[in-house]
C-alpha cells in the first residue's frame, strides 16, 4: 500500500514540475509556477522518506537541513549582477551530487554499470565545467579564452581514454576503472570550458544546465526511478533548447562555441585601408538635451551595464524622460546580451523597469527607424551592422539590433575598442552616432543630473 502512495506522490510531483515550467510562459503566472515546483519537491522528498528500506532518518535530515541553509543564505544575499556565477555554481553542485550518487551506487555493488558510467561522466563534466565557468564569471580566472597548442587533441585523447575506461568497467566490472574514469571526466570538464570566452558564457551555462539534467536522468536509470528520469529529461531538454536559442542568436554552431577560442584572432585595424574616419564624441549634457526633446528613446543595454551596475540609474533616466518630458522610452534586449540567457531582463526588472517596456529583438527592431534616440549602454557587437553585410566577418549572420537606424545614437563605452568578437563596429564612425566615453554608470548619472536640473 505504502508503495502505491509513494508512486502516486511521485506522479503528482512530476506533474507539478511540468506546471512549474509552464508557469514561466508569462511573468504573471511565473511566481505561482515556482511555488508549484517547490510543492512538487517537498512532495517528492517527503514520499521518499516513507520508503520501507530507509532508516537513519536523523542523519539524512541533518544533511538535508545543512544543505538547505547553505543554499538559502547565498540565494538571498547574492547581488543580481552576480547571478550568472551563482547559477553556474548551483549547476556544478548538481553535477557533483550526481557523481557522488553514482559512486555510492557502485560501491554498494550495483549491477547498473552502463547507466552509472554515463551519469558519472555527464555529472563530472557538469561539475568541473561549472567550476571553470564560475571562476571565469567571478573573475578568479581571466574571462578571455585560455588556449594552448594541442588543446583539442588533448581533449579528444582524454575523451577517448574516459570512454575506453567506461567500456573496460562495463565489461570487466573492475571498480578501479570506474574511479579512474570519474577523475578523467572531471579533468575533461575543466579543459572543455577553459578555452571559452566570457561573452559565450550564456551558451556554456545553458549546456551545463542541460548536463546536470541528463546526469539526473542517468541516475534515474541506475536506480530505476521514473521521477528522476522524467525530471532529468525535462531539465536536459530545457538546457538544450536554451543553448540552441543562444547559438542561434549568435549565428554560430554549438560545436564552434564549445571548441572555444572565439575572438582571439582579432583583425587589428580594419580602417587601415586608407580612408580617414572620424569619431564624434558627445557629452552627457548634449545627450540629455537631445533625449529630453525626443519623442521616442530606445535603450539598448549590454554586459557593460551589468559590469558597471548601471541598471538603477538607467531606470531613473528612463523615468525622468517619461514623466518629466513625456518621452516614449523602450528597452531593447538582444538574446545573448550579458552572461546568461535573460540576464538583462532580470537586471532591468531589479531596477523596477516594468516588463511591458522591455522588448525582444524581433519585436523592437522595426522601431529603431522611428526612434529619435538609441541609447546603447555597454553593448557593442549586438548592434554591429557588419553582421548583416560583411560575409567575411566572424559575426556575419548574427541577428543584430538595428540601433544605427535611429536618428541619433549614443554609445556609452569606456573606449573605442572592438567588442568581444574582435570586429570593429562601423557604427562608431557613422554621422548620426556620438560616443559618450566613460563608465556606464557615471555617464548615465551625469545625464540624469542634467535631466533633473
Amino acid at each position: 500500500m505504502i508503495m502505491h502512495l509513494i508512486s502516486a506522490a511521485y506522479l503528482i510531483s512530476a506533474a507539478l514540475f511540468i506546471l512549474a515550467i509552464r508557469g514561466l510562459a508569462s511573468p504573471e503566472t511565473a511566481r505561482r509556477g515556482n511555488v508549484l515546483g517547490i510543492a512538487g519537491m517537498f512532495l517528492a522528498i517527503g514520499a521518499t522518506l516513507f520508503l520501507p528500506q530507509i532508516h537513519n532518518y536523523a542523519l539524512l535530515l541533518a544533511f538535508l537541513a545543512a544543505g538547505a541553509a547553505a543554499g538559502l543564505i547565498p540565494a538571498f544575499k547574492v547581488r543580481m549582477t552576480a547571478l550568472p556565477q551563482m547559477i553556474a555554481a548551483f549547476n556544478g553542485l548538481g553535477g557533483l551530487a550526481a557523481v557522488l550518487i553514482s559512486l555510492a551506487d557502485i560501491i554498494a555493488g550495483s549491477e547498473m554499470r552502463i547507466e552509472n558510467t554515463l551519469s558519472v561522466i555527464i555529472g563530472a563534466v557538469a561539475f568541473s565545467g561549472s567550476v571553470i565557468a564560475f571562476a571565469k564569471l567571478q573573475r578568479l580566472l581571466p574571462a578571455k579564452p585560455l588556449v594552448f597548442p594541442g588543446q583539442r587533441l588533448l581533449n579528444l585523447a582524454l575523451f577517448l581514454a574516459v570512454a575506453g575506461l567506461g567500456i573496460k568497467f562495463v565489461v570487466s566490472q573492475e571498480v578501479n576503472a570506474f574511479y579512474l574514469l570519474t577523475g578523467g571526466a572531471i579533468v575533461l570538464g575543466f579543459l572543455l570550458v577553459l578555452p571559452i570566452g566570457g561573452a559565450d558564457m550564456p551558451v556554456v551555462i545553458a549546456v551545463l544546465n542541460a548536463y546536470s539534467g541528463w546526469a539526473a536522468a542517468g541516475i534515474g536509470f541506475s536506480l530505476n526511478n521514473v521521477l528522476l528520469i522524467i525530471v532529468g529529461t525535462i531539465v536536459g531538454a530545457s538546457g538544450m533548447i536554451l543553448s540552441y536559442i543562444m547559438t542561434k542568436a549568435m549565428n554560430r554552431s554549438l560545436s564552434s562555441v564549445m571548441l572555444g577560442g572565439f575572438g582571439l584572432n582579432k583583425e587589428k585595424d580594419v580602417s587601415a585601408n586608407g580612408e580617414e574616419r572620424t569619431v564624434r564624441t558627445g557629452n552627457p549634457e548634449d545627450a540629455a538635451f537631445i533625449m529630453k526633446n525626443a519623442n521616442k528613446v530606445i535603450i539598448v543595454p549590454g554586459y557593460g551595464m551589468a559590469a558597471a551596475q548601471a541598471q538603477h540609474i538607467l531606470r531613473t533616466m528612463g523615468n525622468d524622460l517619461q514623466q518629466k518630458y513625456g518621452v516614449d522610452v523602450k528597452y531593447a534586449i538582444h538574446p545573448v546580451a550579458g552572461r546568461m540567457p535573460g540576464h538583462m531582463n532580470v537586471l532591468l526588472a531589479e531596477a523596477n523597469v516594468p516588463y511591458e517596456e522591455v522588448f525582444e529583438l524581433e519585436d523592437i527592431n522595426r522601431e529603431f527607424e522611428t526612434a529619435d534616440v538609441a541609447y546603447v549602454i555597454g553593448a557593442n557587437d549586438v548592434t554591429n551592422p557588419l553582421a548583416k553585410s560583411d560575409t567575411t566577418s566572424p559575426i556575419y549572420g548574427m541577428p543584430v539590433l538595428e540601433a544605427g537606424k535611429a536618428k541619433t545614437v549614443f554609445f556609452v563605452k569606456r573606449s573605442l575598442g572592438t567588442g568581444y568578437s574582435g570586429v570593429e563596429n562601423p557604427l562608431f564612425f557613422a554621422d548620426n552616432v556620438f560616443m559618450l566615453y566613460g563608465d556606464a554608470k557615471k555617464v548615465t548619472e551625469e545625464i540624469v543630473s542634467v535631466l533633473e536640473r
Partner: protein
Amino acid sequence: MTEMWFLATILMLAGFTGYFAVKGVTPALHSPLMSVTNAISGIVIIGALITAGSAETQTVSFPGLAAIFLAAVNIFGGFAVSQRMLLMFKKKENTRPEQKGEKQ
C-alpha cells in the same frame, strides 16, 4: 529487458513534454527558467536519500550523505533565487503609484 524499454519510453515522452513546456517560456524569463530547472534537477536528492538511507555501511552512506547536502543546496538555493528574481518582474500598474509617491 521490457523494463528498460518502459523507461526509455518514459524518457522519450518526457523529452517531448519538456520540449513543449520550455518552448512556451518567454525569453524574458530565461534566467529564472535556468534557476528553476536547476532547482528541480536537485530531484537527484531522491536518489541520494535512497542510497544513503538504505546503506548498511559507512563507506556507502558517506557519498550519499554528501550528495544529499549538495542536492539540498541546489533545491533550496535554486527555488529561493528564482522566487527573488520573479518577484522583481512587475507590471506597469504596480510600479506607477510607487513612483508618484517618490515625486510628491
